[in-house]
């Protein structure tokens, strides 16, 4: 699956690329407005990561070009501008999601996963992981065909792990994913532990193998 990273900060673009490459994504880069325009006009991507402040132009214009050409590429805006007006403007212009910098790479991976799933598997949106099946449209989880009843946060957590398969996810990334903007107000992320514990318990009771590993001091990893 092809991803275009439109970001003028090479370090950040490279890190995003490195993280996503391990998720079997194929990343291309554009660091200026002109490069970005050329790429989106010539090639198609499953998902485009779009920085709004680009040398040579406004990132929103890239969205307009896509719209004019009737292209269906998923777009996630990644911007340092974390305010309501910019978010609204971006989403109005046709972006699928808006992620404010600084963000955690697993969060970005989860957003990309979600955008691609929404766009490409609109009808039959099932995620299969070994003996686990998640129906994204009805939000139903089954193990060996038997229903597992999860809370909304547990389901969020499960999808977050699945979209970051085989990667170590830090506790603060999980906390931010679960509680959004208020997460960075706290240093204590113990509540994450409680949710993970419950999720693990419910899955193992349903007969799912121990694929969710705790990593010392830092976080968790979903092996699959």
């Amino acid at each position, binding site marked *: 699956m092809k991803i275009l990273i439109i970001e003028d*900060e090479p*370090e*950040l673009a490279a*890190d*995003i690329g*490195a*993280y996503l490459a*391990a998720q079997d994504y194929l990343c291309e880069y554009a660091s200026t407005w002109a490069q970005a325009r050329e790429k989106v006009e010539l090639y198609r991507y499953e998902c485009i990561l779009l920085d709004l402040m680009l040398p040579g132009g406004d990132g929103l214009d890239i969205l307009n070009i896509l719209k004019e050409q009737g292209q269906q590429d998923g777009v996630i805006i990644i911007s*340092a*501008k*974390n*305010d*309501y007006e910019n978010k609204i403007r971006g989403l109005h212009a046709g972006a699928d999601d808006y992620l404010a*910098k*600084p*963000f*955690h*790479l*697993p969060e970005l991976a989860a957003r990309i996963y979600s955008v691609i799933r929404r766009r490409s598997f609109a009808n039959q949106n099932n995620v299969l992981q070994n003996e686990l099946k998640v129906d994204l449209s009805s939000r139903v989880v089954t193990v060996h065909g038997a229903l597992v009843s999860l809370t909304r*946060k547990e389901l969020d957590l499960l999808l977050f792990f699945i979209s970051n398969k085989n*990667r*170590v*996810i*830090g*506790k*603060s*990334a999980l906390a931010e994913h*679960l*509680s*959004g903007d*208020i997460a*960075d*107000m*706290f*240093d*204590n992320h*113990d*509540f994450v*532990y*409680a*949710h993970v514990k419950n999720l693990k318990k419910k899955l193992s009771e349903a007969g799912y193998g121990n694929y969710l590993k705790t*990593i*010392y*001091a*830092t*976080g968790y990893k979903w092996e699959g």
Partner: protein
Amino acid sequence: MGRMKKLLDQSLRPLVIYTLVVLIVSIPVYFLTINWIWENELDKHHYAIREKLEKRLTSLDLPDSAVNDMITVLDKVQPGFSFNEAAAPSPDSTYTLIRFDTFMNDREQFRCLMTDIQVNGTRFRVLIETNMEEIDETILAIAAVTIFFFILLLAGFVYLNRKTSLRVWRPFYETLASLQAFELEGGKPATLPDSQVTEFADLNQGLDRLMEASLASYKQQKEFTENASHELQTPLAIVKSKLDLLLQSRSLDQPQMQILEDAYQAINRVTRINKNLLLLAKIEHAQFDGQQDISLPTLLTAMSAQFADRFESSGIRYTQQVGEMTLQANPMLLEILLTNLLVNALRYTPAGGSVSVRADQGKLIFANTGTSALDEQNLFRRFAQASSEHAGSGLGLAIAREICERYSWQITYEFDCGHHHFTVLF
């Protein structure tokens, strides 16, 4: 600061006081002058009478017995005269006397002359009295006239002061009105009226310069905070992503993982401070305008739901007793205010403690378990951490206060019965 006084009244006041003092002093002066004239005139008159009396009686050339008869008649009949035979001469005396007069049937004041006359070699002691106005009545009359003139002057002063001062000071009041309408957020200096008066022209020029300078530095400051904050976002994003990548390394040992986790904590804190600085700058610059009616209990319930799992994992009991209450505010700002107070309560409550939110007569009270009172002086100041145990951003309560000030709400802190109370008075 006492009661405010108006400029025009200021200039009137000493004038009025001065006039009052002069007029009060004038009352005894008038009286003394009038009295002196009165007495002087009466004394002259009395001496004239004495001369006439002596001359006429002598020129009649009557026998002694007839003189005696006539004097007895004068003594009995002519008012204001009394005669006594006197053996030895005595000096004249003039004096003023107040006594009851049987004829007038009232207390009366008299000017008297006691003197000797000599008729046919016989010496008589004569008392000549003239009724004059009583001293107290004179003073009263003068005072009444003075007060009348004072009132006349006062009315004139007020009228003239209004009329001329208003005209003289009009450019000043116009400048004042323009200044009061001036807002830094507007980005434009106030237009001040032209004046032909040097002082006002200078004043306006000075104000113009001041406004231009404030606007420039305001703009600069606004841009600076926002730019600084935005500039920080990118390196922060890089550090964060580097840590996320480093975490994927398979060769990390446990101490290294601990270091990574500590680095995460620190980067989160920097992110938080940066975010709050930007927010504070935005609130100060009134970038959140739009207002709407917001139901306080609905918003609070929605927000506390976000915190529910944190309360639970810290073993903190959360209670909310807020009846229906609608506020006019920007929804984002109100949410930030409530979030910051809830976060504050949650962060500083020890495990097993409680956090309660209750509304009471236009007040919203956040109470949480605590051990000792916090320093109220510093609590709402930026980066004035009341306790070093927990590392917040140092800005949460400063932001809360900024939002409250924006809507003229009052936020206060008190410690009571082992609970911290943060009260917002709407």
